[in-house]
């Protein structure tokens, strides 16, 4: 991070404890600090159950940290919902809404009129490979298309940060690869900033500028590594010696 640009999102020593019965507490997050600069994609990987989702809930404003602070563009933002757009692992497209109506959900919640929201989202459909499916119902789409529709619903909210919680986790390997390649392409064309949770080390290396490795619960930051591989990264990147080195470092950090 260069000194003159304030990070888009900055977590400072976020700790979250849950009250159990009989006065006991369980610490899920232990002083997690990380930052995401504008235009960056930062991945978070860690053992399952380490508290990644809790971290996302805190950033999305659905949960409050016990201590620590969140700053968005330098301003305190704890408990606020209007700086990050959240994309859960399940596509959660509502079966009673057409794809365009689903995509416009966030805009409608923001108070934009149905008509205007529709107009806004429809412009995005070609870039997301969803042209012609504006009025389709979710069940008519394949898994990969549904996931793209869910991402579309996330990005049209025009928030400072995208929070992607294992967006490709439920897809088969081929579809996943296809979507990773596609995501990189649209990434280049847009000025998005994102935090991505993933289980997949290769996915983290392919997509991110930086990878944050968390420890088992209570989660703290074990390692942060920069990914300096040239973009766009495709199948040939996997053969790159730097890729192998990063993959090995990350896998070792995860298993130690």
């Amino acid at each position, binding site marked *: 991070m260069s000194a003159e640009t304030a990070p888009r999102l900055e977590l400072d020593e976020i700790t979250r404890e849950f009250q159990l019965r009989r006065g006991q507490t369980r610490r899920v997050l232990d002083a997690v600090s990380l930052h995401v600069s504008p235009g960056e994609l930062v991945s978070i990987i860690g053992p399952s159950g380490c508290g990644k989702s809790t971290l996302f809930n805190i950033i999305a404003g659905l949960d409050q940290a016990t201590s620590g602070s969140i700053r968005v563009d330098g301003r305190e933002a704890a408990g606020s*919902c209007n700086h990050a757009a*959240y994309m*859960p692992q399940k596509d959660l497209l*509502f079966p009673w809404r057409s794809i365009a109506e689903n995509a416009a*959900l966030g805009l409608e*919640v*923001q108070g934009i009129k149905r008509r205007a929201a529709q107009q806004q989202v429809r412009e995005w459909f070609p870039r997301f490979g969803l042209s012609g499916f504006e009025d389709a119902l979710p*069940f008519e789409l394949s898994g990969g298309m549904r996931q793209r529709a869910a991402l579309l619903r996330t990005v049209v909210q025009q928030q400072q940060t995208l929070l992607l919680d294992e967006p490709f986790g439920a897809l088969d390997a081929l579809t996943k690869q296809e979507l990773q390649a596609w995501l990189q392409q649209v990434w280049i064309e847009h000025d998005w900033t994102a935090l991505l949770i993933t289980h997949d080390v290769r996915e983290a290396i392919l997509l991110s500028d930086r990878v944050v490795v968390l420890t088992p619960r209570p989660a703290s930051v074990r390692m942060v590594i920069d990914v300096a591989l040239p973009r766009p990264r495709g199948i040939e990147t996997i053969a790159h010696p730097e890729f192998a080195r990063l993959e090995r470092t990350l896998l070792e950090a995860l298993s130690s």
Partner: protein
Amino acid sequence: MRARSWANLWVPLVFLTVLVAVWEAAVHLTGARPQVLPAPSRVAESGWEHRAAIVDHAAATLSVTAVGFGVSLVCAWIIAIAIDFSPLMRRGLIPLLVASQTIPVIAIAPLMIIWFGFGLLPKILVVALVTFFPITIGLVEGFAHTDREASALLRSMGAGRIREFLLVRLPSALPLFFTSLRIGITYAVIGAIFAEYVGAKEGLGIYMSVQKNAFRTDLVLAAVAVTALVSITLYLSTYLIERLVIPWHLKERRAANER
């Protein structure tokens, strides 16, 4: 799928025809007196003869059913929404709802007549009492059936509780609502007839009661047949309404079946 469901309709119809034929033959073979067991042909004949009276009484029953069921629907929606928004309401009302179902309607219906007379009100109350429980529970569970993550997604978008209710909880509940509506509507007709049986100026219930006392078993059975016809029609009409209100549900289910 639709073609198959219509084809399936023939099977029960064939069974019904066989049953009626056996009944007809049994009456002729045993020579049973029509006051005890009239043949189906006689039921149909007498029913047709008295069609004007039966239709009038059926119309009265239908209006009691409709008004009572309407009251029941309004109560069910209000109570279910209150329960969905307030944990206190949930804790306080659900046990009362369950308790309301332990009231023996057979004992309460005559009391209703004593309290409210022979007019519409006691009948509407009986219909509402027997139908609002399944509908309320269907709605409460329907709202609770909402995907928690979908609620979280909406809240992450900045939606408040009312927005969340309108955008996701309400539509999520509709499929279960229609299921409970179907249970409720069949109870509604039975409830109306029962209330009329106890005491009324008009309606299929009191008609049956009067004909029974006159030993017109054939007319009692004709009224029973009309009751069944009304119930089935109302039951099937819920599918029609469901199709109009939540077309997505049917389409999705059909697609899931084809997979």
